[in-house]
């Protein structure tokens, strides 16, 4: 069977061999077993459902949390001519949505946001066609232990029971053993569900921990890092910080810098991604909005200028470096002041029981809540869970977040091998790491300048970004 699968992979997709875990999961699905796959970001999770498409009769329904992810995946399927695709999300008008639902039997793939899938009209339309495969992408969103917990994912188990798909596939890049168990439990998957859990270890990533004692330290060390001249992604905590740091860096370097966050228009975000992918931008300073669906293979340096909220975000964000398999450096700045500020931000964002109850009683009353808090409550309101249950979930997640944050802080303050700790935290069967000079280091053990001298990071020639062009020049570039 595996050799047949490999032949098919070569013929249909042009890849010589499967990435770890792909063949195991495909074999299980083709044998009629449900599956959960925990595979690292960029390891070809979407290939799994694309691969099985011609082997299954009926619709492949993919639940995905982000509009940009759905569009990206749908485009890939269309351009590779794997099958007809439709995308259902909140951006469609009712007429457009009805059009898709009426013609559902003509599609092979349907991408849908979890909130949209709750709508009776959508479920009824899916029930009228044969459902071959129910795919839950970013399945860790189902677990309140996961950092991206999304209330509407909680109802997917129930939806799955109603839709009765022939097969179910849950996909994620980050799942601790606890999150993994939650995925299986919440989706109500049978005990014999196949699973594959890749280790989170990426040997081409050098992990560096940079302890900061003065505010100026960050800027000095940042300067040394950006002087490397390699494609760089810098993560910060807030939109304001992204903008401010990008402006600061623009004064300190000749390289082109841009900031990226969820508040930018779709067109601006697209343009930044494109310029970064084409090496026309050297440095992007971003919030965690820069992530899913963006695959820049030659990213050599990821810096956490501010602390990520937890282990999961850290792992996902460093995982964007070195997708081409070449050595990449990841640096995290550890500053107690940042930790305290982060705690304050979390505290400010927490919802009280009274605020939750008031929201459900009077949804139009903003009660001095910020947009992010209102967004969370609106998402819960859509699930139609009783207010007592919502309050309990929110309280529980808030406690979990605090525990997870504490665990991450312990990691940042430990003196043992960082890679081993990451594996111990995420892997069900953590490998024993043979720590060497290509593994990880901390600022107490080795200076940053010494490290940068010895790490052979591959340089990329970054083009200067063009100045303002005349109308004639632009039109010539566009059309001649």
């Amino acid at each position, binding site marked *: 069977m595996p050799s047949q699968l490999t032949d098919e992979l070569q013929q249909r997709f042009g890849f010589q061999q499967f990435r770890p875990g792909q063949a195991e999961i495909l074999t299980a699905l083709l044998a009629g077993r449900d599956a959960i796959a925990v595979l690292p970001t960029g390891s070809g999770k979407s290939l799994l459902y694309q691969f099985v498409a011609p082997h299954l009769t009926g619709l492949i329904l993919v639940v995905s949390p982000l*509009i940009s992810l759905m569009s990206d995946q749908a*485009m890939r399927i269309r351009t590779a001519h794997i099958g007809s695709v439709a995308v259902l999300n909140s951006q469609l008008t009712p007429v*457009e949505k009805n059009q898709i639902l009426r013609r559902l039997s003509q599609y092979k793939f349907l991408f849908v946001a979890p909130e949209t899938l709750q709508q009776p009209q959508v479920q009824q339309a899916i029930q009228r066609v044969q459902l071959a495969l129910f795919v839950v992408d970013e399945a860790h969103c189902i677990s309140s232990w996961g950092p991206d917990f999304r209330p509407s994912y909680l109802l997917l188990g129930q939806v799955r029971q109603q839709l009765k798909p022939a097969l179910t596939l849950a996909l994620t890049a980050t799942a601790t053993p606890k999150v993994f168990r939650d995925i299986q439990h919440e989706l109500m998957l049978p005990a014999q569900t196949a699973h594959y859990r890749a280790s989170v270890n990426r040997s081409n990533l050098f992990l560096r921990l940079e302890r900061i004692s003065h505010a100026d330290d960050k800027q000095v060390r940042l300067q040394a890092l950006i002087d490397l001249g390699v494609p760089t992604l810098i993560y910060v905590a807030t939109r304001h910080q992204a903008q401010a740091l990008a402006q600061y860096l623009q004064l300190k370097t000749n390289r082109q810098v841009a900031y990226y966050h969820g508040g930018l228009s779709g067109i601006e975000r697209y343009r930044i991604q494109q310029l970064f992918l084409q090496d026309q931008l050297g440095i992007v300073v971003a919030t965690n909005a820069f992530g899913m669906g963006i695959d820049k293979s030659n990213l050599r340096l990821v810096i956490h200028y501010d602390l990520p909220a937890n282990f999961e975000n850290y792992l996902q964000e460093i995982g964007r470096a070195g997708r081409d398999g070449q050595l990449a450096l990841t640096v995290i700045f550890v500053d107690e002041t940042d930790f305290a500020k982060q705690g304050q931000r979390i505290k400010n964002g927490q919802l009280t029981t009274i605020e939750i109850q008031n929201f459900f009683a009077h949804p139009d009353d903003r009660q001095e809540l*910020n947009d992010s808090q209102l967004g969370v409550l609106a998402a819960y309101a859509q699930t139609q869970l009783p207010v007592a249950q919502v309050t309990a979930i929110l309280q529980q997640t808030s406690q979990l977040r605090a525990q997870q944050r504490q665990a991450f802080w312990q990691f940042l303050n430990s003196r043992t091998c960082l890679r081993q700790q990451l594996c111990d935290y995420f892997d069900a069967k953590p490998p024993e790491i043979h720590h060497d000079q290509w593994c990880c280091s901390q600022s107490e053990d080795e200076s940053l300048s010494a490290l940068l001298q010895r790490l052979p990071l591959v340089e990329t020639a970054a083009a200067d970004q063009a100045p*303002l062009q005349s*109308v004639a020049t632009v039109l010539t570039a566009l059309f001649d």
Partner: protein
Amino acid sequence: MAAELLLATFAATPRRYKAIFYGLLGKDTVSNLLALREYGLLSYFHLYPKLSQSKFQAQLVKLQQAGWLQIDQTAATATLTTAGAQFLQAQQLTDYWPHAYDYWQFGDWQLQWQRLLLGVQVVSNRWHQVQQYQPLTESFQVQQELHAWWRYWSQQDWSQFKIELQTILSQLPESAGILLANSFSSNSFPGLTSQHLAQIQQQSTTVLQLAQINSLGLLLQQLQQTPQQWPMLTSLLPLPKSPLPRSAAQTYQQLLSGQTWLQIVQQRRIKENTLKEHLLMAAILIPTFPFQNPTIQQLCHQDPAGFFAGRIAQLQGGAFNA
């Protein structure tokens, strides 16, 4: 939006700040529209569809703290102080607003912007035989429109599109033409990020965006004046047939066709007050609104002291004579 720019929406007489907020956001109630019309801000309707109320309020507080705005919480109004008026004038803040773009004539600027940029991307990529690329916008509506536009013109020579674009951009003020051209993007021309464009122009990204909207407005004005000269661009950037939403436009057409109030009410099966709001919207947004129409006169006579008669009188610029 920067707080200072917001100052340009206020005046030395008190203005209802909530009406300004909801107007910029794009809530088309009669009350908001009347206020915007009175303040001379009607064309800026829907300029900031994602404006957050908390941020808007925070900006008002900032302007108050700077001594430029006086806020009356009870009346929910804000007034420019003398210092605010001086600052507004000295910084020429009003000039930054997109005077050339009128929502009621040109529609949602975001849609028009996406249509223009996606149209250029699609034609440019086709020109260079690039088939696999990510469209500049994720909007399903705009993508569908572009498909239809592409199919309609598929037999035409696409160099015509370049000629139209080149001609129209050269007819705009130089700065507007250059700004629009440098906002384009395709695989053969990656373009510049707004951040970089703003940096080159020594502006904030907010001011840059307003300049882009204004330049788009200037381009649409050209299309509106001589549509036959730009067939491809005119069909890429369609202008709304009426400033009114569909249902309100229908009520207004019934009025124009000479139907009595009773006939309109019986045919539409909508609440009478809603139908009256439709007519008020038409009176606000359509310069040729027939104030002397018998049905309008009849409605005003029925309840001379009522909301409808009062607003009609206000819009006519005088009291209603019963």
